[in-house]
């Protein structure tokens, strides 16, 4: 999240630099943003579902910890989505490479680790 902060407070600044790209590329960027928002919403829904539908887990408060972690992740994905959208829009206007990001890989690892924790918990419940 660097270099794009001024776009947060001055939305029109993204539309004065460089040249206007083909509208289809802008719309594709908008759809990518919406896809990330859906990812964030899915994580938020997962967090709420954890809190409401999981039985209390063997470790105290683990259910609430998982729920809060998913909610934080979902909110973070939403905020990061708008930042990435602004940077991609700016790159297209200036004709430079699209921004690269490690975020999808980090998100995938975080979700996979969470799944491993849950599988471990389910197995633990089965044995005890």
């Amino acid at each position, binding site marked *: 999240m660097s270099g794009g902060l001024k776009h947060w407070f001055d939305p029109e600044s993204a539309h004065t630099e460089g040249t206007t790209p083909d509208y289809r590329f802008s*719309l594709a960027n908008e759809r990518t943003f*919406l896809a990330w928002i859906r990812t964030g919403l899915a994580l938020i*829904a997962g967090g709420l579902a954890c809190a*409401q539908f999981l039985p209390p887990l063997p470790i105290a408060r683990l259910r609430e910890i998982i729920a*809060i972690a998913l*909610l934080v992740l979902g*909110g973070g994905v*939403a905020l990061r989505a708008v930042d990435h959208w602004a940077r991609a*829009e700016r790159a297209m206007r200036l004709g430079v490479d699209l921004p690269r990001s490690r975020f999808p890989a980090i998100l995938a690892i975080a979700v996979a680790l969470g799944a491993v924790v849950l599988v471990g918990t389910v197995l633990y419940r089965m044995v005890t």
Partner: protein
Amino acid sequence: MTARDPGASPERTRLAWRRTGLSAAAVALLAARPAFHPGAGPAEWLIAAAAMGGWAALAALALHRAPGLRARPPHPAPRSIRAYALITAALAVIGGLVVML
């Protein structure tokens, strides 16, 4: 760009806004769920109202975006996009309140 758009980009984008609104509806309903429990109090009602208000705002933003997409060429939507992300993050905060209660 007045020629036929073979990729139907505006149409696909409009449908993407709609899909996202439907996902947000699921989140709002989950956040509002505790308000329907027998022991629900004002806190649960307030949270449900906030979640439904957030969802209504997201639906309104998608509706507001539609005419811009119908224009030729389609208008950019930096304000709608920022507002959408911020309201989504606010839904996450409302979800946090649901978990804490």
